[in-house]
């Protein structure tokens, strides 16, 4: 039993932290808000050079063969600085889908590029309905010669306007679970990108309109109608990735609040000496530390394929959603007016955490799944 990071993990954290602190400054984050791509390609490639992109990619495809814990460590650091870039869409969403598909050819084709940062990808699931299973997929991929034709609209595709290739989930059969994954180049004929503007200006999402987009047969990732399991794997890992990033947002919000409460004076004394502020900060600390435990337990459970892994993911997402909401929100209250200004960076974290909250299952969705798992008896082994 060891809940502490290993030495390698601590080094990884420090590496990521140092790089991001230096490069992903407030000015950079602000510059990317107005940037159509929304990220700095050179900085992203550097992440690849530092082996931060391929952490969870097998060594034979150019990665480090590590896992979710290591990705969570890096994502927490990204949350701490509100890093803008296609890290999650590429190396969590798309890479997980490809790996979970078991499709060796697809792995060989895409993973090395994802690991190096030469290639960026995204993952297109949602259409009109909100949900995280195959049932939300109405868009059809119709066989056409040796390929497929896709028509319809995908929404909320992260960095869909900027990545090279999009893994699209499409319906290929009539049973509820009959979905398949297709790799579609962003510049495919018939594919129109409609960028959104979201509350978090660094959350670059878009709608993708498919008008008879034709893809060859080898665009299929995995087997026909075999998309449900990879989708499930994506949801599991994406939820934990969101937790890690929210945790980072909470940490920075807490730290900024504590620093501010130490120096800001009202009524002749630092506001941190007032119980209203002090106790709020204490609750923020409590929420943040518990969010840490929940996030990394879930990351470990996925890596270890623990019997309670699905439970742990839903425990984490439901808990960290609420914790980050509380911490990032209370940080504004602790700061008062200045925390409400654009010039001050606090809103980066508030917005990023809020952006991540509904994604890959909101609190209510995961609480329902927690109970599902418990009633099905899929709980932690030894302790029950």
């Amino acid at each position, binding site marked *: 039993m060891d809940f502490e990071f290993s030495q390698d993990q601590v080094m990884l954290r420090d590496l990521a932290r140092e790089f991001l602190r230096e490069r992903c400054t407030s000015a950079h984050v602000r510059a990317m808000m107005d940037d159509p791509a929304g990220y700095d390609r050179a900085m992203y490639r550097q992440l690849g050079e530092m082996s931060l992109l391929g952490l969870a990619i097998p060594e034979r495809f150019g990665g480090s063969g590590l896992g979710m814990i290591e990705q969570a460590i890096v994502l927490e650091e990204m949350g701490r600085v509100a890093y803008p870039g296609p890290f999650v869409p590429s190396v969590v969403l798309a890479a997980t889908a490809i790996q979970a598909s078991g499709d060796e050819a697809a792995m060989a084709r895409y993973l090395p590029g994802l690991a190096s940062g030469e290639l960026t990808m995204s993952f297109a699931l949602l259409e009109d309905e909100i949900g995280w299973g195959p049932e939300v997929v109405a868009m059809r991929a119709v066989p056409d010669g040796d390929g497929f034709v896709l028509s319809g609209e995908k929404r909320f595709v992260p960095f869909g306007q900027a990545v090279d290739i999009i893994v699209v989930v499409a319906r290929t059969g009539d049973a509820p679970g009959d979905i398949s994954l297709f790799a579609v180049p962003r510049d495919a004929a018939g594919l129109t990108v409609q960028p*959104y503007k979201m509350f978090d200006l660094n959350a670059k999402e878009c709608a993708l309109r498919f008008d008879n987009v034709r893809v060859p047969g080898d665009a299929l990732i995995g087997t026909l109608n075999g998309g449900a399991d990879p989708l499930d794997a994506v949801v599991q890992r994406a939820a934990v990735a969101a937790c890690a990033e929210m945790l980072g947002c909470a940490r920075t919000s807490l730290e900024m609040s504590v620093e501010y409460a130490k120096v800001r004076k009202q009524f002749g004394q630092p506001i941190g000496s007032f119980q209203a502020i002090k106790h709020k900060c204490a609750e923020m600390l409590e929420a943040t530390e518990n969010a840490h435990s929940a996030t990394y337990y879930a990351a470990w459970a996925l890596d270890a394929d623990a019997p309670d892994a699905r439970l742990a993911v839903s425990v984490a997402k439901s808990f960290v959603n609420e914790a980050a909401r509380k911490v990032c929100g209370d940080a504004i209250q602790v700061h008062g007016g200045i*925390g409400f200004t654009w010039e001050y960076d606090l809103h980066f974290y508030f917005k990023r955490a809020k952006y991540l909250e509904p994604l890959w299952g909101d609190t209510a969705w995961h609480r329902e799944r927690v109970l599902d798992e418990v009633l099905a008896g899929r709980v932690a082994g030894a302790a029950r």
Partner: protein
Amino acid sequence: MDLFYTQEDEEFRRRVRAWLEENLPKEPLETLEQQRAWHRAVYEAGFIGMGWPVEYGGRAARPMEQAIVGEEMARVQAPPTLNPLGIAIVGPTLIHHGTEAQKKRFLRNILTADEIWCQLFSEPNAGSDLASLRTRAVLEGDEFVINGQKVWTSGAHRADWGLLLARTDPDAPKHLGISCILVDMHTPGVEVRPLTQINGSNEFSEVFFHNVRVPAENLVGELNAGWQIAQTTLSYERGGNTLSRVSRYMAVFNRLVEAASELRRDGRRAIDDPVVRQKLGQMYAEIEVLRYGSLRILSRLEKGIRPGPESSITKLYYSEMEKRHYEFVLDILGPYGQLIEGVPAEYAMKEGVAYGEPGSWAYHFAYSRAGTIFAGSSEIQKNILGERVLGLPKEVRADRLQAQQAAKAQAGGEGGA
């Protein structure tokens, strides 16, 4: 107890509705000119400053009539009129504390919005602790010379005049050295810098004063009596206008129900999801309770009973409620609630809204975070309720101790325990 509106009130409401049906602008008001025209129409209908005494351009209307106008305007989402601070804050202040000359000079122009006003109270280091403000006004001959900085000034960029709190006696205890002064915002040395908020809007500004010279006759009330004036002003219009807030919340709620009736989540319409329904039921109930509380205050106002510090209950309640409700909104609408541009019409709060403009769910979600900070934070409201309503003992506080020590030192160095 009788919570039916009187026949007179119902009749008045019908008149307001009829007027609105005829006069409500069909298109959004885009230019200042259009806004001025709308303001003037509302003024001429008698719906602005209607509680003011007749001799100053008002109609001495009952609080209930004012509330009905507010409610009906909000119900049809009428465009705001101009000069809200002039009408709600500055006018009443001048009516109570101004000289006859000041009343003559300013009041009518406030009502007509020919001169637009802002309120120059908060400073970077004087937020919750407003009395520690540092902007100085030094009397030189028949002029005040003003230096300092204000912040969170709403509408400063289009204001012609400002109601300023400034320190006129730096040696007095902090509440006793403050004066209330009228400042022409076009005076040389006044600089307005817009301040952008986290939702991208910039209705607030910072205002800088560099040797701004203001005639001494612009002093309101006595020299160094500004703190008292500000306190009465701040409490003057409390409570009576909450019904229009209720109407605004109801309009948002209704739009949310429409969106939730369209939006599918996990295989059913959001409106059919029992967990979503709990949130909607709670929201409506909480808004209704605000309405009941508003009627309660209003019925006291009708009897001439002005609300005291207990009106902090209303502010505390609605600001915290708004925060809770916009979290519900974003819970229910999921990622659609965070879209500013590109949001499908069926889920939009309002269509065609740009980042930084009111009308998106997320804009108002962000704004709900400000409500518990501005106009007296929730912490300040709770202090008021605890100390001034419940009579709980005051905090042991550094500024009070300093004041005590200073007083003691001044009384002569007798020393000791």
